[in-house]
C-alpha cells in the first residue's frame, strides 16, 4: 500500500467538499408566494352550516378523492336533552349528497363539518418513519406521495380520523388545505363553494385577516383540545357533545 500522508491530505479536502454538497441541497423557487409569511388555518361557523354537502362534493372534484373516502365530511349530531356525552352522530356517505330528513326532530340537532385540523404539533407527522409527511413552513400538514410507504402509522396516529390510504396509489392521503389553490391566492375548494360562509380559510399570520377579530369576539373551540395537537381549525358555536 503506497498511500502516503501527502495522498491522504489531498483526499480529505475533496471528501469534505462532497460532504458539504450533500448537506447544502438546492434552494426552491417560489415566485409570488412567500411560505414564511403565512400560517394557514380555517374557521368553521357551526350555526351557519346547513349540511348541503357542497364542500364534500367540491373537495372530491378538486382533489380527485376516490368514492367512499373523504378529505372533508359533514356529521349530523343529535343530542337528546341532557345526554351530551352520548350524541347520535351520522354521516351518510360523508354528507356528500346532503342528509335525509331528520328522524330525530326532538332535542338538539346540528351539522359539524370536519377536515384535517392542520395541527401545529401534529401527531401524524411525528410518527412517520420516512419523513413523507410534515408541517409545511406555512402551517399545512402535507404528504409527499413519492416518499410515502403506505405503512399506515399516520392513519392510526391522527386523533381526528382525517387520513386514509388511497386505494389507487396505496399512499397516505389527507386534506392539503388545497395547497395548490392557496399558494395561487385562491381560497380552498370547500370554502369557495360554501353557500352560507360556514367555512372560511384563515391566514393567522396576516394581521388584516378577519379571523383575528372573530377569534377575539366569539366563543371558539378546537376539536379535542385535551390532545394538545395545536389544531388550527377553529369551531364557532360548537356544542360540548362534539367529539
Amino acid at each position, binding site marked *: *500500500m503506497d*498511500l*502516503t*500522508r501527502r495522498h*491522504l491530505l489531498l*483526499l*480529505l479536502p475533496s*471528501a469534505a467538499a*462532497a460532504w458539504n*454538497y*450533500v*448537506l447544502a*441541497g*438546492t*434552494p*426552491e*423557487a*417560489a415566485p409570488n*408566494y412567500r*411560505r414564511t409569511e403565512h400560517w394557514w388555518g380555517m374557521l368553521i361557523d357551526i350555526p*351557519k*352550516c*346547513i349540511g*348541503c*354537502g*357542497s364542500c364534500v362534493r*367540491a373537495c372530491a*372534484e*378538486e*382533489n380527485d378523492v376516490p368514492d367512499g373516502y373523504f378529505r372533508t365530511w359533514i356529521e*349530523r349530531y*343529535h343530542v337528546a336533552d341532557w345526554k351530551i356525552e352520548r350524541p347520535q352522530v351520522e354521516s351518510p356517505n360523508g354528507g356528500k349528497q*346532503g*342528509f335525509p*330528513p331528520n328522524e330525530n*326532530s326532538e332535542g338538539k*340537532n*346540528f*351539522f359539524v363539518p370536519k377536515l384535517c385540523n392542520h395541527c401545529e404539533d401534529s401527531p401524524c407527522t411525528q410518527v412517520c418513519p420516512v*419523513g*413523507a*409527511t*410534515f*408541517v409545511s*413552513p406555512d402551517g399545512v400538514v*402535507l404528504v*409527499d406521495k*413519492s*416518499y410515502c410507504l403506505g405503512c399506515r402509522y399516520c392513519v392510526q396516529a391522527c386523533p381526528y380520523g382525517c387520513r386514509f390510504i388511497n386505494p389507487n396509489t396505496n399512499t397516505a392521503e389527507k386534506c392539503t388545505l388545497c*395547497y*395548490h*389553490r392557496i399558494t*395561487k391566492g*385562491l*381560497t380552498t*375548494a370547500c370554502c*369557495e*363553494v360554501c*353557500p352560507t*360562509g360556514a367555512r372560511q380559510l384563515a391566514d393567522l399570520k396576516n394581521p388584516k385577516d378577519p379571523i383575528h377579530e372573530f377569534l377575539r369576539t366569539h366563543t371558539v373551540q378546537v376539536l379535542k383540545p385535551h390532545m394538545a395537537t395545536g389544531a388550527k381549525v377553529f369551531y364557532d358555536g360548537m356544542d360540548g357533545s362534539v367529539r
Partner: protein
Amino acid sequence: MFKDIEHLVRLAAVLVIALIAFAAIRVAVVPKTFGEYGHYRAAALNDIAARSISFAGHDVCEGCHTDVVDQKKLGKHVVVPCEACHGAQGRHADDPASVKPPKLDTAVVCSRCHEANSAKPKSFPQVVTVDHAGGIACDTCHQPHRPRIEDEAPNTAKVNPEGKR
C-alpha cells in the same frame, strides 16, 4: 516513534474510502431538497402546489358575468358563490368559447340547501319541496339569482302568497 507505520496507513485508507463511499451513496439516494425546511423533501411543496385547479373562484366569474352579479346584489343569494350551484367551472373560465356549463335542474340544485331538515339553523329558509311546489322546477316561479318573488314583480306576491316563501 511508530514502528511499522504501514498498518496505520492501511487502516486510514480504508476509513477514507468508506467515508467517500458513504458520501457518494448519500448524494445518490437522498433527494437534494431533503432537510431544507425540516425532515422532509422540500421539493414536495412545489409538487403539491403544481396541481391544476378545478374551481375558478367567484372573482373570475364576476369578471365576465356582471349582469348576474347585478341581479344577485338585489337578493339574498348575493352571498352564494357561483360555483356552489354551477359546479367547478375552471375549464369554462380557461376557454369560455368552447366549454359551456350545463343547464342546471333547479328541482335538484335548490333542494340541496332548502329542503327542510331539523338540523338546519332555524333562520335558514327551508321548505318541504313536495308540499311547497309538488315537484315542479323551482325556477318556474323563482329566479335563482334573485329568488324572492316580490323583488321581481311586486304584484304577483299578493295574488300568490304561497309563492312568497
